[in-house]
């Protein structure tokens, strides 16, 4: 009974509550009550999808990581736009990326980053969580893609989750 009333993931609850206050027009009594209900209900309902607590050890490194990703999105968008408008055919390639990250949350963050940065889409993760299949729109060789992703993103994520 007490388990039902608790907040199994305090950070998720806090984020949900704050997001709800931002979404509603100004903070009022009603929005606080509804925000509390949502902050309690959603983690309870989705508890089954979180097999283990996310270990987010070094959260203060997050803003620097987001800044790098944001900058890369803008820079790489221009190169993809140039490729689309130029008459030459792209050289697509499927890359099997050997993952060094182990935490599931870290892997899904890396996969999302890869999909958001233009020119690469992560297509699948192998069942043992060791390989990531990436489709690159225009790349010379698979080693080029692997090195770029490892040096730019995976190292930062490894520092964040270790």
């Amino acid at each position, binding site marked *: 009974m007490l388990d039902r009333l608790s907040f199994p993931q305090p950070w998720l609850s806090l984020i949900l509550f704050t*997001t709800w206050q931002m979404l509603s027009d100004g903070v009022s009594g009603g929005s606080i009550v509804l925000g509390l209900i949502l902050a309690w209900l959603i983690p309870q309902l989705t508890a089954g999808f979180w097999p283990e607590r996310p270990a987010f050890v070094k959260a203060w490194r997050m803003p620097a990581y987001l800044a790098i990703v944001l900058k890369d999105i803008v820079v790489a968008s221009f190169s993809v736009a140039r490729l689309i408008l130029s008459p030459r055919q*792209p*050289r697509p390639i*499927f890359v099997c990326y050997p993952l060094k990250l182990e935490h599931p949350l870290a892997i899904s963050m890396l996969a999302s980053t890869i*999909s*958001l940065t*233009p020119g690469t*889409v992560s297509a*699948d993760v192998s069942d043992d969580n060791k390989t990531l*299949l990436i489709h690159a729109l225009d790349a010379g060789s698979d080693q080029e893609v692997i090195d770029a992703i490892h040096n730019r993103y995976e190292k930062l994520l490894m520092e964040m989750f270790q």
Partner: protein
Amino acid sequence: MSPIAETLISALLLLGGAFTLIGAIGLARLPDFFTRLHGPTKATTVGVGAIMLSSVIYFSARGEGVGIAEILITVFLFMTAPVSANILAKAAMHIGVSTMVETEGKPWDQ
């Protein structure tokens, strides 16, 4: 509204529109499913980002407060776009969509 704000808003709107258009052109021009997947994901990231930014500047320049809703829309979009791209790619590999001849490497199925 100051002329600087107006210029900035117009420039951002044009940039966003241009990237959305290029994404659509990419969808029509690129040769196979997997390369076409790249067009729309790009249009949403920079195109929508620029349009949202212009909306934020517009409402703050009119003194109606910073639009938190726009920023949240962008954040939600950035969180969901990679997931949908991932599921599309997975579904395509599952039903064995053919890739263009020049593609190096192979999709695996498990």
